[in-house]
């Protein structure tokens, strides 16, 4: 199947500054695609090129097989929700949401109905007659979302769509966005710097850094198999140590000074003697009072303990002075049954398969 959006070696230069640097992406029809990255990494710029407000300095963009180079924003089958919302201050909520439908070939009654349905969707039915400056930030954000959705475009671009919402409303809206996507088959590109949001929403994630795409893949792939220390560190929490590959058999063996010993990892094809990084997710490390029978295990002392309700975060100090983060689920209500307490001597251990070996 041909991709719905094809971004072909696109770069955007502002003066000498490369905001987007040689990005290529294929996005399928009906996909929910998330662009994830820190502030200023070029997410909005990439989105603006898709919407047509910026033209690429290099490269080409195809949407639905059509080259977008000469197509102005008002002729693209694309709607965008702006990071600043960009609500029209002189129009009511209703007029804002209905604005795009003015230029469509539909009857007045149908237009009113669509607007009503959209406001219902974002739970703003009671606010139809208000002006934007009479709304809270979260309400404005929902109006902006409704306005972008109202035209039911083939491609919807959302720039930080949920940043101003509280947790509950955010979860609700995430769910709504997902169900809209399934119902209407709209392709979504969502920009976010909230990795959890990206994980929940997206079919695939692209991690951006300084205008470059570092990794693209399904959330689980990016989380469990990061291709670089940047991606590993950016998504989720992780323990990372300098390491060196020692010659071994089928499994790779790493010499990790910070852990004070050798670690077996199930990575393949890395030449012996190579300097690498070992990364282990905190929830993949087990904590025990006795030395476990096998696996990679190291002794340490509990330095710090954070209780978060469903789980706890331990920081264990090793002999080398390195601190290791360990996440453990609080499966029992009995405090004494916790894996360990402050100052206690413990063993940390993890499976070879939990060890991520990163070559950059």
């Amino acid at each position, binding site marked *: 199947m041909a991709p719905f959006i094809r971004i072909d070696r696109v770069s955007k230069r502002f003066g000498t500054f490369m905001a987007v640097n040689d990005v290529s992406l294929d996005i399928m029809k009906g996909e929910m695609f998330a662009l994830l990255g820190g502030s200023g990494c070029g997410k909005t710029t990439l989105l603006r090129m898709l919407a047509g407000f910026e033209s690429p300095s290099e490269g080409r963009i195809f949407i639905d097989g059509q080259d977008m180079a000469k197509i102005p924003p008002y002729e693209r089958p694309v709607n965008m929700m702006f990071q600043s919302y960009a609500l029209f201050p002189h129009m009511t909520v209703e007029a804002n949401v209905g604005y795009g439908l003015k230029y469509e070939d539909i009857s007045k009654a149908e237009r009113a109905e669509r607007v009503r349905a959209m406001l219902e969707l974002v739970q703003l039915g009671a606010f139809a007659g208000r002006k934007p*400056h009479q709304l809270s*930030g979260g309400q404005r954000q929902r109006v902006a979302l409704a306005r972008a959705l109202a035209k039911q475009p083939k491609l919807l671009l959302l720039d930080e769509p949920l940043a101003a919402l509280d947790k509950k409303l955010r979860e609700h809206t995430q769910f709504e966005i997902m169900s809209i996507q399934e119902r209407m088959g709209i392709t979504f590109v969502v920009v976010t*710097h909230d990795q959890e949001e990206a994980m929940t929403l997206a079919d695939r994630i692209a991690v951006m850094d300084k205008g470059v795409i570092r990794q693209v893949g399904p959330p689980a792939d990016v989380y469990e198999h990061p291709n670089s220390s940047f991606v590993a560190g950016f998504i989720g929490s992780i323990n990372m140590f300098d390491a060196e590959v020692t010659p071994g058999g089928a499994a790779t063996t790493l010499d990790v000074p910070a852990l004070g010993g050798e670690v077996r990892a199930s990575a393949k094809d890395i030449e012996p003697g190579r300097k690498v990084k070992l990364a282990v997710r905190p929830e993949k490390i087990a904590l025990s009072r006795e030395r476990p029978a096998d696996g990679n295990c190291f002794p340490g002392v509990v330095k710090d303990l954070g209780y978060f309700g469903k789980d706890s975060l331990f920081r264990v100090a090793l002999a080398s002075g390195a601190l290791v983060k360990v996440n453990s689920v609080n499966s029992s209500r009995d405090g004494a049954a916790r894996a360990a307490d402050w100052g206690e001597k413990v063993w940390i251990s993890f499976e070879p398969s939990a060890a991520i070996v990163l070559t950059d």
Partner: protein
Amino acid sequence: MNRRPVFLISCLCFGFAFFYIPILSLIVFSFNKSRLATVWGGFSTQWYAKLLDNDQVIKAAVLSLQIAVTTATFATVLGTMAGIALARFQRFRGRAGLSGLVTAPLVMPEVITGISLLMLFIYMAEWIGWPGSRGFTTITIAHITFSMTYVAVIVQSRLTSMDLSLEEAAMDLGARPWRVLVDVTLPVIAPALLSGWLLAFTISLDDVVITSFTSGPGSTTLPIYIWSKVKLGVTPDINALATVIILTVGIGVALAAYIMHRAEARRERDVQMALSQDTP
């Protein structure tokens, strides 16, 4: 109390006195019973009544108002166009030059502007036979040329502070550039347009220099009328007339300032609200 406020307050008083005592004395003497402009002879409103009987004054006032309204309207349209061009075409060659050209009339001596327009009208009359005589049309054209500059500056500064993404959002929703202008840009900057109109109106209403170059026989505006009268000596009826003009112009300027201020305050409030609520 320390000394600073005393000093500042005296500065303020002096400034106000310097500016407003002449105007105040003019207003006071317009209610003077005496014929002599400088001797107080008791309170009276007779000079105002006399004004209404003076056909010449009424005719001049009507002409002035007609010119001012026409000028303000055209100046607002043209000035808005210039302001939009200056604010929206960000990077074209000669932008700085054009910007300078638009604002130059603000600082150009009025005599120069007046003479150049007079020359233009004379040459045009010679070559294309128009304008046959100078009057309403030539005065209005002259007023438009220099008052549109003020409108352009107001519109430009309003547009540069307007969020560009509003226009982008409209375009994104399918509006062509012309519709974007009508649906979004103009309504958003409407207060600036209104205050620009009022400013152009007052500028046109009290102009003497440029008008005197471009008017002809039989087309006497109010300021010109006053000017010609004052040459023969100040009389209380002129004081009365001047008071009326001051009031009109004052109201116009105050209204313009108020409209701008209110729009500014509202925008400020919106921005504040937006900032306090969009924590990243």
